[in-house]
């Protein structure tokens, strides 16, 4: 399993549009992908799960991938975080 931390820089936090892009991107992978915020971990392939975290701007989140394509999945997640302007890391 591999994981990486991100600081949410989007002023509106993790809102529906970037969350959709992120969920759509990681859903293609076989690995299990999760996002954790304030000790609560949810499936990153679930839009309802991600939205239910209500992640505000400035939060630190951990994205973890576990499975045969975990490296690609995490790379893809990081790309989307950056391209959608959710995080600058």
């Amino acid at each position, binding site marked *: 399993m591999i994981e990486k931390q991100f600081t949410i820089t989007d*002023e509106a936090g993790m809102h529906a549009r970037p969350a959709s892009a992120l969920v759509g991107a990681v859903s293609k992978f076989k690995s299990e992908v999760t996002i954790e915020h304030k000790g609560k971990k949810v499936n990153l392939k679930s*839009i309802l799960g991600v*939205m239910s975290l209500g992640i505000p701007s400035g939060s630190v989140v951990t994205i973890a991938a576990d499975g045969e394509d975990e490296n690609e999945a995490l790379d893809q997640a990081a790309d989307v975080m950056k391209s959608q302007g959710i995080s600058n890391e």
Partner: protein
Amino acid sequence: MTTTMSGIAASSGIAIAKAFRLENPVLNVDKRTISDVDVELSRLTHALTTSTADLKAIQKKTAEQISEKEAAIFGAHLLVLSDPELIGPITEKIKTENVNAEFALQEATDMFIAMFEAMDNDYMKERAADIRDVRKRVLAHLLGVTVQSPSMISDKVIIIAEDLTPSDTVQLNAQFVKGFITDIGGRTSHSAILARTLEIPAVVGAKTAMDDIQNGMMVIVDGLDGTILVDPEESVIEQYKQKQAAWDQQKAEWAVLKNEATVTADGQAVELGANIGTPKDIAGVLENGGEAIGLYRTEFLYMGRDSFPTEDEQTEAYAAVLKGMKGKPTVVRTLDIGGDKELSYLDLPKELNPFLGLRAIRLCLEMPDMFRTQLRALLRASVHGNLKIMFPMIATLDEFREAKALLLEEKAKLESEGVAVNESIEVGIMVEIPSTAVMADTFAKEVDFFSIGTNDLIQYTMAADRMNESVSYLYQPFNPAILRLVKMVIDASHREGKWTGMCGEMAGDEIAIPILLGLGLDEFSMSASSILKARSQISKLSKAEMAEHTDRILALGTSQQVEDYVKKLSNQ
């Protein structure tokens, strides 16, 4: 016979057409025990697949007719239809509890709806509406009920509905849908925002429209003031047709001014700003072509809570406003509390004359720790934009000096801590007490700018409580006494190379604008919705010509004479 109803004006304009009731389908969900799990699962799959096809079509149409950004919401809806954390529990329920798909869907979605509704954030609460919207579509397919679709409408109508779902709203074809009325909703609900984007007049929160309006009834929607007229008489229709024509003409005139600077007919520029209460108000300011924030009332940050906002919370709010304004001037007023504005967690003694008591800057200087926290937050946020700080209710030069000293002390502390602070923050005062207006020449040497708060300036100059009905006739913005004070302030600031704004009700007033222009006011700050109207008015006025009338206006004896004089001028 005309029946009049009212609601919340959500999108401006006037529409006159026949009513089209958008009925919500009856989606009764009973719990049934099923015998064939596979049949039930394939019913679910089929409903999900058809719903996906529906949503993809709506998404495409929205992207074409409105924008990619608005269409994005359906991207989220589509993901809900394939969400493993939702579909998993539904299929699980069908398999293990032998219940029908409708019931399983209802139960699983209820859980998420409850979760979003419980969040203390309006944005997240609205996500519950998205889940309801998706659920309604899937349930309708499972039950074989047709969901009435606004895209089927082919006559000019006004839609009457209990509420419009996001997907209903984007299917509204402005060619046929002339306006809409809903029983529930507020100015910031999803449908209200979209109505403004589509420029369809709308009144929301009308409460009983679905009970009182039948299909085919003639309806007038006045999105300017929230009025609804049902079954109007011919004369009323005629009257609203005129109002509609006038509005259309005005709108066309104003729209071209949105991105223009505010310039008088003789080429003099003035600045039109907006008064705001929360960072959320920025959208409306930009939508209406505001060039600045002339007054950000920070007290809303302190109200409706149990304790003082922390330095970090405040910094975040101020930074959001400054970033939102993208470098445009932003005047933030420090805490103006006390008097009639109370904080539950701040136990102040009752006063005999609260308006003349411990309030605004007086309270802040009395409670320096609270004040310093706000000043630090402002300084920390200052690097994000063009911040100007102003102190409310300054009565003496000593008060200003003391407040400014606290600001400079906090700035020095932050700098020694290595925190970046904007070096060019202007520091000004509100002029709302006659003593300060009279001493404006002395103040002008020390402040960077003045902002005239007319509501209080009138109250204190006329010695009449503006909340007291018995003396309300003394609330006279056009009394020459007020105008002479305004002139003293503007002249004093100009002599020292400083500027003067106005952030009271008066700045957006049609009669006041020509006078203030003549007096040389540099910045007018008003409610965002008045900006384009004011810009249009100013573009037709000559500042030099108005200045020539100033002496004559100030020599008049009464408020009524001033009003009459200006009205006569504008009718020429």
